[in-house]
């Protein structure tokens, strides 16, 4: 039996001309960027609260453990600053890069993106909302690690306020990278793997003192978006930080953040319509 077009069935007939005359119906409203970003952020934060608290503990203890280990190797000076700054930013990398890559990888594989793709929401709102929620979620862990590290290595706590800039900027850069990896990976296991690798890179390249690395590794370190956050943060432990250089590092971080979020948004568009 072949196809029965609806037109030839009883009651299905309709004049084509009649249809052609009508103007297309008015479309429903589009969700605007900021309100929908806020809505996604709030929803993501609430799901992160439920599902991710144990993982935040893991991230925090991992960083604290690394600092305790490094305590035996380095004793003060530039190396100590690098360890504390790197361990603090590692918490951001764990959540924003690793967990976000996993989340988007799974969402894509399970068809969860369909939900957002059939709502009139700007892609940037979905990506930025999720990235923002994951980045904010790292705040308590990062602060705990930074304070603990300063006490452990006898560094001044005076300039810890710079975390107010470091967390969102490093968070944006790493979350953008994580979201892009999760959305571009062809399979969810691969997304998880890439997220883990990204975090390992942040661990090795961010925590270990720079001057003991071979040239290739130093180059890789320069490519990693979290590096500039780590450097900016590390500089502020000095007695009289060079704020211009700190600002420069943060600016690079912001630039990388914008770029990686843009890539993530592009990846979302690509993943949402198959």
């Amino acid at each position, binding site marked *: 039996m072949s*196809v029965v077009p*609806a037109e030839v069935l009883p009651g*299905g007939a309709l004049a084509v001309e009649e249809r052609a005359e009508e*103007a297309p119906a008015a479309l429903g409203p589009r969700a605007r960027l900021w309100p929908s970003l806020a809505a996604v952020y709030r*929803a993501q934060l609430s*799901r992160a609260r439920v599902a991710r608290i144990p993982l935040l503990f893991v991230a925090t203890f991992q960083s604290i453990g690394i600092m305790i280990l490094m305590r035996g190797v380095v004793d003060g000076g530039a190396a100590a600053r690098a360890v504390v700054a790197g361990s603090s930013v590692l918490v951001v990398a764990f959540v924003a890069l690793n967990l976000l890559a996993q989340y988007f990888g799974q969402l894509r594989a399970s068809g969860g993106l369909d939900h957002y793709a*059939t709502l009139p*929401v700007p892609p940037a709102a979905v990506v930025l909302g999720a990235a923002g929620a994951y980045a904010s979620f790292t705040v308590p862990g990062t602060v705990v690690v930074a304070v603990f590290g300063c006490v452990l290595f006898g560094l001044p706590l005076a300039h810890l306020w710079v975390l107010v800039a470091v967390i969102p900027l490093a968070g944006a850069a790493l979350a953008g990278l994580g979201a892009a990896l999760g959305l571009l990976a062809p399979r969810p296991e691969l997304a998880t793997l890439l997220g883990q690798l990204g975090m390992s890179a942040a661990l090795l390249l961010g925590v270990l003192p720079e001057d003991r690395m071979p040239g290739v590794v130093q180059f890789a370190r320069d490519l990693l978006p979290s590096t500039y956050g780590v450097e900016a943060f590390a500089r502020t432990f000095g007695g009289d930080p060079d704020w211009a250089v700190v600002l420069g590092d943060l600016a690079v971080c912001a630039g990388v953040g914008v770029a990686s979020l843009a890539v993530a948004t592009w990846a979302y568009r690509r993943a949402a*319509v*198959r």
Partner: protein
Amino acid sequence: MCVHRAPRAMVRSWDPVGSCLVSTRTEHGSRHGRDVVCAVRGLTKTYPAVRARRGVPATPEVRANDQVGLQVRRGEIFGLLGPNGAGKSTLVRQLTGLMRPDDGTVEILGHDIVRHPERAARILAYLGQESTALDDLTVSLAAETTGRLRGLDVRQARDERDAVLEELGLTDLAPRPIRKLSGGQRRLACFAAALVGERPLLVLDEPTTGMDPVARRAVWAAVDRRRAERGTTVLLVTHNVIEAETVLDRVAVLDKGRVIACDTPAGLKEKVAGEVRVDLVWRERAPLDVPEVAALRSRAVESGRRWTLRLAPEEARAVVATVTGGAAFVALDDFTLATPSLEDVYLALGGNGQGLVKA
């Protein structure tokens, strides 16, 4: 040996859920000018073949939709019926702009969805077959967020959320995470999210899967209310023939990616009018020593102890007389006599009816 239990004769039991629909059915067609909400022509979609990888066997290319043509009219509950893998989800994913067809056109309320897939989100609400995006949210936050992402402001989203949860009887479950609900409750919560932020077209992919009769009734009542008050059109995917018969105005039967028939349920059933279905269930095995029973065997579809026969009414009467008397009756456990259902239509049209659900 004697008969302890008289076989129960049943004339087709009707699903109670659908009955609430009949009263409010109204004709919305011409009142608002546009008669056809969704027109699909020549829609074709082929999933490409996948080469074998380690541990994953190769899959051949699948033509999931083959020259599908449909017209869904305003205010109508239009169904897509077919067994697993018939191509129903593939079809609705192309209508909702989630997937680009290889060929063919989709026009919804005058908008070309193939060329402008992003417009679909502003015309219709879609309930997908799986909805993992909402799993970690509470019922209440899922509904509210979805409303906000449909362009509502905070106040509107909360008001509509409360109204919809109340309407569907979900108020008590509102603070619970969707992941922690039962399958049917989860489905109902996702349906609630789909209703927040009004849309003229609802595209629902198996909305009632796993739901009990109370939840189903809530779904159909909510759909029907929107249709009566606002002329909402519904495109519904199902592989449940009872649901199709009771709630749908018109139904397209899909098999292997093609529309093999499209009409009202009653119209489709007329195609096999004059036939009666007789189901015989034997206690242990069919009494083939009874010549009349042995003669029936070639015409029966056997599945375990059940024989299904499609007969002219007078033949059916003769069969019933045979099996309710003498040696055959002793071997009989149960029998049913029923007027044709959509399943019979489906089989008569040449579909393979194995995948259809009758509950």
